[in-house]
């Protein structure tokens, strides 16, 4: 089992590697939201959190697929998902919500790195993905950050 280190902010990388890092992050996020969906079906069925998690899961699957296509377009072999990723204990709805916020905020950092390493359409994809992470985190009750994706650096 692999910890979600794919979501750690990475140093400066060439564009294709930046997108590979985004794809690796999205693999981990999609896995994380899958775990959350299963857990919330037990501890919070019908809750607002479950609805938000389902929506986020669908959005991240879309992003993952878009990144796969982008990496292929760049002539590289897309990084594969790990078989599994470590997740924290999820005792209740608030634990689930906290993990979802963490996923969004850590994913935002990876997209922020990609913005710095790309140009034009690729940069726009990274910037809009960063924006999406910031919005989803806020919907999960995270405070609006002054610098999404850059906090704590």
């Amino acid at each position, binding site marked *: 089992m692999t910890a979600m280190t794919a979501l750690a902010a990475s140093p*400066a990388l060439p564009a294709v590697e930046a997108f590979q890092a985004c794809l690796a992050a999205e693999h981990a996020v999609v896995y994380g939201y899958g775990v959350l969906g299963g857990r919330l079906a037990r501890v919070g069925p019908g809750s607002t959190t479950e609805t938000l998690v389902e929506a986020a899961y669908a959005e991240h699957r879309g992003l993952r697929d878009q990144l796969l296509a982008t990496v292929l377009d760049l002539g590289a072999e897309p990084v594969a998902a790990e078989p599994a990723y470590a997740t924290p204990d999820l005792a209740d709805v608030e634990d689930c919500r906290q993990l979802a916020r963490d996923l969004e905020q850590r994913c*935002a950092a990876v997209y*922020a*790195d990609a*913005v*710095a*390493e790309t140009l*034009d359409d690729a*940069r*726009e994809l*990274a*910037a*809009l993905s*960063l*924006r999406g*992470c*910031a*919005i989803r*985190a*806020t*919907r999960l009750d995270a*405070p*609006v*950050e*002054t*610098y*999404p*994706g*850059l906090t704590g*650096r």
Partner: protein
Amino acid sequence: MLHCGVTVAAGLVGCAVSGCTGDGTDPAPVPEGGPSEPGVGTPQQPPDQDVNLVLSAVKAEEVLLALCGSVTTEHPSLRVFAVPLRSRQRRHVAGLRALVTDVDVPRSTAQQRSPSRPAHARARLMAALERARDRRLDDCLAATAGPLAQHFASLSASHAATVDQLRRADW
């Protein structure tokens, strides 16, 4: 202070000399075809375009800050959202100014009067935030330096999250 990167900050300061009028008026326009080439025998400098982007963003974000202040003062019913927004906006302006610390960027004296009706004030604030969200994304795409693009993308994302939050809020 935001970490847009020492190299970028230093570069922005260095190229500001040729990119700014220096008298407090609007930054000089960027020539068609992009930034100028560095002169022969001189150290390579980042393009003027990035400096102009920062200076114009400072100006625009200060106008938004003034509007936040006006809404906060004139509409107590909107303070629950306007006060944290104003604080965040102050940090945005400070972060942009920190990128051009050696350039004399005059403080905006623009007064922003808020509409008298709270609903209208709210609508105006939302429109201003949406405009800032879109402009900072444009700045991100136009920036030459990667770390500066990152800074603008983050600002745009912050504005976008605020817009989304306010749109969902019952205020």
